[in-house]
């Protein structure tokens, strides 16, 4: 089991980081927060040209034939920069669901010509019951799904339908309404999706549809841990840089021991979280360990860490970290929403307890 980054992964990271550094500086992200366009289309094209959108898609399906390990590295970088691109919705959730169904539609997602979204609430955790708020009648779909990540950017919706089944629906089909929500994280927006007698194409049904959705949720949660590591890493780096530069009382504030110790603790938590995120990516990619355990563990550790790192960044930047112009809040909002996305740490820990045979049934439950 390889928990390190390979040379190929490091090369990929460099390419992605170079693009993000040039095309997605904090000032641009902040400027985008209130724009109507939910994502940065030109950045998306640059990522597509790097092949970053279809890394874990086999070559015969139009992808790079790499693995989820490489996709995880891209997410680390996207987390570092809080880039406003629909990567989680399209390149992770929708792509994984389509791959599991062996649908040809995956090729256009891998190439970036189509943006996809998986029509489930962003808070859905792996292991949840099949989310079927849409029903089918005479081949037409009707129903509503709230809080769908990246739906506002998507031209292709992958929709779980009671039955169970999984449908592909073009976003410009009759009866489709996508209503943007005012999101806490404006760099990763959610939207409510309504279908009213909308035509769609079945891409899987029965157990296969259930498995496809579960696979997407599990992969999504597992790779989100890598994004969270990226968020935390960037927060720690920015904070370390700031406390070295910022002088108060005639000293760099980073020479004060209380600040040093807090950052040392944060670094250590990051080191441990990174091991769990790599473990999840490796396990999802190779099946070398139980992926359900690996994902639940990585989410337990990384989701909390990202929030803590972002909160420490805001605090240790003092007043400047509370301003709209400073990027600290981008990380804070991404991290806080990440804590809710694809299962809260509490839900993942509950799952973990079940998976590793630490049961919760309590004899005295009745009396409380």
């Amino acid at each position: 089991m390889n928990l390190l980054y390979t040379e190929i992964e490091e090369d990929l990271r460099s390419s992605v980081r170079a693009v993000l550094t040039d095309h997605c500086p904090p000032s641009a992200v902040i400027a985008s927060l209130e724009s109507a366009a939910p994502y940065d289309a030109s950045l998306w094209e640059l990522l597509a040209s790097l092949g970053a959108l279809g890394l874990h898609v086999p070559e015969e399906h139009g992808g790079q034939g790499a693995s989820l390990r490489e996709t995880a590295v891209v997410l680390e970088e996207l987390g570092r920069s809080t880039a406003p691109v629909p990567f989680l919705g399209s390149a992770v959730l929708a792509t994984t669901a389509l791959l599991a169904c062996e649908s040809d539609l995956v090729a256009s997602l891998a190439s970036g010509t189509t943006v996809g979204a998986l029509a489930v609430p962003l808070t859905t955790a792996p292991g949840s019951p099949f989310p079927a708020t849409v029903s089918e009648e005479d081949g037409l779909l009707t129903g509503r799904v709230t809080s769908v990540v990246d739906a506002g950017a998507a031209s292709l919706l992958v929709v779980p339908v009671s039955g169970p089944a999984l449908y592909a629906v073009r976003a410009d089909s009759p009866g489709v309404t996508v209503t943007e929500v005012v999101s806490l994280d404006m760099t990763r927006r959610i939207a409510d999706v309504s279908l009213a007698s909308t035509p769609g194409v079945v891409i899987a049904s029965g157990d296969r549809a259930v498995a496809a959705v579960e696979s997407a949720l599990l992969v999504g949660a597992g790779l989100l841990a890598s994004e969270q590591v990226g968020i935390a890493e960037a927060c720690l780096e920015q904070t370390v840089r700031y406390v070295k530069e910022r002088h108060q009382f005639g000293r760099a504030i980073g020479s004060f021991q209380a600040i040093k110790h807090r950052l040392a603790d944060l670094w250590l938590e990051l080191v441990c979280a990174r091991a769990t995120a790599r473990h999840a990516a490796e396990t999802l990619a190779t099946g070398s360990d139980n992926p359900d355990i690996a994902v639940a563990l990585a989410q337990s550790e990384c989701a909390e860490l990202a929030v803590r790192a972002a909160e420490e960044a805001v605090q240790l930047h003092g007043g400047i970290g509370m301003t709209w112009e400073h990027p600290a809040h981008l990380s804070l909002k991404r991290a806080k929403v990440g804590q809710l996305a694809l299962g809260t740490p509490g839900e993942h820990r509950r799952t973990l307890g079940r998976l590793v045979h630490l049961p919760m049934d309590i004899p005295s439950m009745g009396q409380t």
Partner: protein
Amino acid sequence: MTHSALSGEAEGARDRVRDLLAAHDPRTTDRLEFLRARFDAGLAWVHYPVGLGGLAAPRELQRVVDAELEEAGAPDNDPRRIGIGLGMAAPTVLTYGTDEQKNRFLRPLWTGEEVWCQLFSEPGAGSDLAALGTRAVRDGDDWIVTGQKVWTSSAHAARWAILLARTDPELPKHQGITYFVCDMTAPGVEVRPLRQITGEAEFNEVFLTDVRIPDAHRLGEVGEGWKVARTTLMNERVAIGGAAIPREGGMIGIVASTWRQRPELRTPELHARLVELWARAEALRLTGMRLGQQLAAGGPGPEGSGMKLAFAKLAQDISGFEVELMAEEGLRYDDWTLRRPDIVDFTGRGPGYRYLRAKGNSIEGGTSEILRNIIAERVLGLPTEPRSDSGPWKDLPR
């Protein structure tokens, strides 16, 4: 102060209130006219000197006056709107101002005709306020002031500011500071809203470019600004939690209600965390109550230094928990529009707002790090750090 002495004073004050009301019926008198008359009757702040809105009477008497006037339906001076003037500028003007300054500034300050703001913090001088770098250079009877101030509430509404500026960079940092009253309408004063992570702009940045301040608007001696500022800052610290609040008052009450009304949100982990937060909130409430009793008993009440620290941490933990508890709703925000609120309202908005706004609780008005230093050194008597900033201000690393 014996009880009977206060009773005597109280009788006198009640007479004055009766006279004021008789001469200026609140139902028919213009608000501002009434407030000016109240000031002139010495009923504005009774512990201030006669002629400056007061009666040189004990401070406790104010409660009696306020109650009588409120009962008669008299208008008040909207103290939340002019808090900086009342709480910080006025005591400083009273202590350090010349007679001319006191006569000029205090009446319109108290009536709210002139709003005040505070130009102290700078981008480079936050926790270390005494390192401030805004320069004031003498030019005949004026000073010419240039610099940048930040985190200024009410600057856009203010007529006057209390201002700290450096008049001698050769001296150690605490010694080269002078305290001024700055006319916010003077040329060279530019106010820009400072937007926060909540989307709102509660505060402003203030840019001062060659602003002329007459020497007559200096408060205290040249170079004694830090001493003067201590008077201001001592009056800033509000006794948070000093007042008795009911059980489940504040943010914990919002979360507890949600919990009771929304069983579908419950998990065992969230339950354990909620009860822990509830217990901390209740413990802090009792601590505030105990502190109030200590102060009332004339005790030293060092616990006060800790209340803000504990309150900030609790508010952050509760609001962070609330976003998690709300699950799908936690993904949403109410409004990112740039607003300019007059006051901070934690309860009127959504969980996302509370979460973000509470982050400021551990920064504004003294960071939690500085408060821990204060507790460690002043309450526990632990030694100070070795000093690195005792040389001339101009040589300090920054």
